[in-house]
């Protein structure tokens, strides 16, 4: 076992869980010393609270099968509450500010969830999107309350608790990591409770769950609230770290989309997938964004490729890699990897050269174009030669592929029936 437990039902025993938690805690303690610079410490802090945010997102996505484009609403509510708590709410001890953020986000998530969970599937996704945008538009409308486009700032150093004033980044990192470990453990435990099983049931076959006496809407609402609570904790920690929140940005679709993208990229079927996602998110926003102005393009392309070829995300791919490697054989795997690398390098080179030529006026050596194109074509050739034409079920299908959401009032085909949908002799190539 790779130490990454599945949300699908294969749960690790308490010893394994304790080992993983201890391992993560040890890594968290060691990381600042290994990291060195202040920037690295800031990134690690971000990874910690973003992990809470993305784990909360995965409660909806992986555990409940709910695609939410409005997660940032709860995160932003938590951030806003965090800033408000630090600035106005009197002596709320800083270590408790995340809890305040969580409660505020819960207060937002309950009515938002009530509206959103009236629908399921695609409609749910659209409603959550619109709720986030509603909040963003509202925030811009009343700048006196929300700080307008420049946002509201606060100062986190306003007292001492157990000798810590949280001015030093290391102390903020410690706070974030502590909350992350506790939140992660709670969310994992939730998966093992009766509620966790019921949420999985509603994900797999909501109509059958109804015929067993459960109300799918109410269960989804409950999950939305719990997810919102933890999202708010993460958001408040972000507010503590950066001491500023721009509400309109914090709750809008762009932010929600990022959370969704990185939760999926990290992996939705493995519990710790979102942790990988938060690492990717921080790396993308610091290194990738600095390195290339075309970063949304790359992220979009990587996302499409992940959806198509690695639906389990990075974590899922890591778990399935040994088996896939064995099945494919060394030579094919090497060809595939080389092909991906070549095609990727060629495409990136073309895009970057295009940007430079078009906008920064920098001269690009004449050899770049043919070399990049050649790389791209070579990569495709390698991939084509290595790819199988035989159809087989994707080994990394996410858990909710079982549910058909188009008609929520009719029993969707369950996982069993859907195996007959996996093509054996399909006319479509």
């Amino acid at each position, binding site marked *: 076992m790779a130490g990454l437990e599945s949300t*699908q*039902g294969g749960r690790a025993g308490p010893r394994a869980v304790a080992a993983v938690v201890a391992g993560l805690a040890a890594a968290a303690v060691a990381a600042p010393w290994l990291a060195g610079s202040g920037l690295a410490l800031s990134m690690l802090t971000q990874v910690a609270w973003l992990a809470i945010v993305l784990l909360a997102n995965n409660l909806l996505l992986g555990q409940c099968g709910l695609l939410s484009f409005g997660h940032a609403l709860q995160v932003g509510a938590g951030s806003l509450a965090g800033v408000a708590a630090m600035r106005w709410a009197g002596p709320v001890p800083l270590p408790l500010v995340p809890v305040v953020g969580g409660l505020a986000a819960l207060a937002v998530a309950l009515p938002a969830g009530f509206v959103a969970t009236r629908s399921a599937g695609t409609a749910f996704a659209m409603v959550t999107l619109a709720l986030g945008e509603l909040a963003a538009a509202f925030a811009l409308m009343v700048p006196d309350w929300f700080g307008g486009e420049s946002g509201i700032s606060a100062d986190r150093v306003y007292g001492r608790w157990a000798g810590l004033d949280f001015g030093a980044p290391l102390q903020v990192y410690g706070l974030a990591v502590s909350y992350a470990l506790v939140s992660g453990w709670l969310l994992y435990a*939730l998966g*093992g*409770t*009766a*509620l966790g*099983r*019921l949420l*999985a*049931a509603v994900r*797999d*076959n909501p*109509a*059958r*769950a*109804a*015929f*067993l*006496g*459960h*109300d799918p809407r109410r269960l989804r609402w409950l999950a939305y609230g719990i997810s919102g609570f933890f999202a708010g904790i993460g958001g408040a920690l972000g507010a503590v770290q950066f001491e500023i929140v721009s509400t309109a940005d914090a709750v809008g679709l762009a932010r929600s989309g990022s959370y969704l993208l990185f939760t999926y990229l990290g992996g939705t079927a493995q519990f710790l997938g979102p942790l990988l996602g938060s690492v990717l998110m921080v790396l993308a926003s610091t290194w990738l964004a600095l390195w290339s102005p075309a970063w949304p393009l790359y992220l979009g392309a990587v996302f499409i490729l992940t959806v198509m070829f690695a639906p389990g995300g990075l974590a899922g791919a890591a778990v399935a890699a040994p088996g896939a490697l064995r099945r494919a054989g060394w030579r094919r795997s090497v060809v595939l990897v080389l092909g991906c690398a070549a095609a990727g390098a060629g495409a990136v080179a073309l895009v970057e050269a295009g940007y430079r030529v078009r906008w920064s006026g920098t001269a690009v050596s004449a050899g770049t174009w043919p070399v990049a194109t050649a790389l791209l074509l070579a990569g495709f050739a390698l991939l084509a030669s290595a790819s199988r034409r035989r159809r087989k079920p994707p080994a990394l299908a996410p*858990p909710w592929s*079982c549910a058909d959401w188009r008609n929520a*009032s*009719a*029993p969707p*085909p*369950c*996982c*069993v*029936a*859907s*195996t007959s949908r996996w093509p054996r002799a399909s006319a479509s190539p």
Partner: protein
Amino acid sequence: MLRGVDLAVAPGECVALIGPNGAGKSTLFDAVSGRTAPSAGQVLLGGRAITGQSPQRIRRRGLARSFQITQLFGTLCARDHLRCALAGAGSGRSRLWWLRPFQHDAAAEAEVSRLLHLLGLDARGDIPAARLSYAEQRALEIGLAFCGDPPVVLLDEPTAGMSQEETRLCVQRIRTLGAGRALLIVEHDMDVVFGLADRIAVLVQGRLIAFGSPAAVRADPAVQQAYAGSWAC
């Protein structure tokens, strides 16, 4: 489409609903169990009207059903299926119990184990349902309907697609689990029908053309005409 179907099932009685394809048997089940709302008429459960209520409300009132096409939770094991079904039947406990793992409820766990044994799934209880064999899935499907002691159970073609031996086992299970309950079973297999049913209702093109004891139905000329000798008497 159903036209003027008037059917009553007494407690402890087993009524088989038969009829050619397209007669409206599944439509009747859907209308009764809350999947669709009937445009006219009433559904009474123990004297109280449950017409047009949601499936979960009807289940809590005590009417459970199984499906012709197996409807399971693919990633959950059989044990979890039964636990969820028990939880849904409503034991009177507050919902806060859901924050504890299922294993903490000893009485429910005992009941789940008993049901697994009855369904022949002891050894297979912890495997995800998607990986069970067809017969095991059908057994689980039927078991879900009996979970939580509902007084009324609707079974939609419980032996569909089963071999002789599997059918025999299935009928035995239905007899054991269904003892003392009101059962309404849709079936095409006449051996099963005559083996289980106290009364038979015959539905043809949405109309109830006969309702009585097996012998009476067998002798009924209208029924014989409808089936035109398609089953051996």
